[in-house]
């Protein structure tokens, strides 16, 4: 350990602003990338599921319509 006390460590020999600013901003930037990638992943999966559910609904509706018109034809 190069520093005698916590105060000394935080003061960084008078360069506290620059050292902690650098490390802080870097940490924030790296965190932001990870969070952004993970949240995009979630969002994409959700979108994919919604889109496929929509397609399934459309297909089901088409089928129902086809059945209905068929039954109407046989009924008349």
């Amino acid at each position, binding site marked *: 350990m190069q520093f005698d006390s916590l105060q000394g460590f935080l003061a960084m020999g008078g360069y506290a602003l*620059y050292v902690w600013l650098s490390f802080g901003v*870097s940490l924030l930037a790296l965190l932001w990338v990870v969070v952004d*990638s993970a949240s995009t992943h979630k969002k994409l999966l959700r979108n994919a599921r919604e889109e496929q559910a929509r397609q399934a609904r459309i297909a089901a509706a088409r089928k129902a319509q086809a059945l209905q018109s068929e039954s109407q034809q046989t009924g008349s």
Partner: protein
Amino acid sequence: MWKWLHPYAKPERAYQLCVTLQPYFLWPGILCLVAGSIWGLAFAPQDYQQGDSFRIIYIHVPSAILSMSTYVAMAVAALVGIVWQWRTAFMAMIAMAPIGAVVTFIALFTGAAWGKPMWGTWWVWDARLTSELILLFLYLGVIALYGAFEDKQQAGKAAGVMALVGVVNVPIIHYSVEWWNTLHQGATISKFDKPSIAPEMLWPLLIALLGLALFIAAVTVMRMKNEIIRREYHRPWVKDLAARALGDDHAV
């Protein structure tokens, strides 16, 4: 080797590979970054000239080195994509661009924060800082071009061409800026001259470098998964994946 590699040109296999690799990159990367930073911040000896401000080196130098290598890696992926027509290679390329830009930004920011106590101003047109800034512009250009296309297939190819044009230029830019700098600045700026660095200072630096490299790989893999899903929207395997990942409770 080609026989072994070829199945990974298929998006689904590539996705599985990404899932497998991600923890091996992410956790050791974070561990090494934290270990290198703490070692560098608290345990490495003081620099006899720059005092404690030199501790910025443990984030500045790894990010500066890796910002260049990430760009080269991007260009290699683009070349593979163009020559062998691998769609997944373009996805890997575009997955690397944002993290590369962020790392370049970190190198610039820490360079400025180091320059303030050493040179007295936040920004000087130092050769390395200037070429780092231009590298950031190149990254942003690739990202902007990719974003401008609706069709992501086409976007990948276009961004790939631009990445290749950029990579031919990176060494030219680097040397031209260095030469321009010596022409204009004279000896007013003391460069960081690097004598053989003491081993107790070097070890944490190498660990931080390794950590950041693994971290970049992890983010690349994460974003590549996203790119694959974005293009395979309608495939059944994505549906299964979404169902498994999100839980089936509110499925329609």
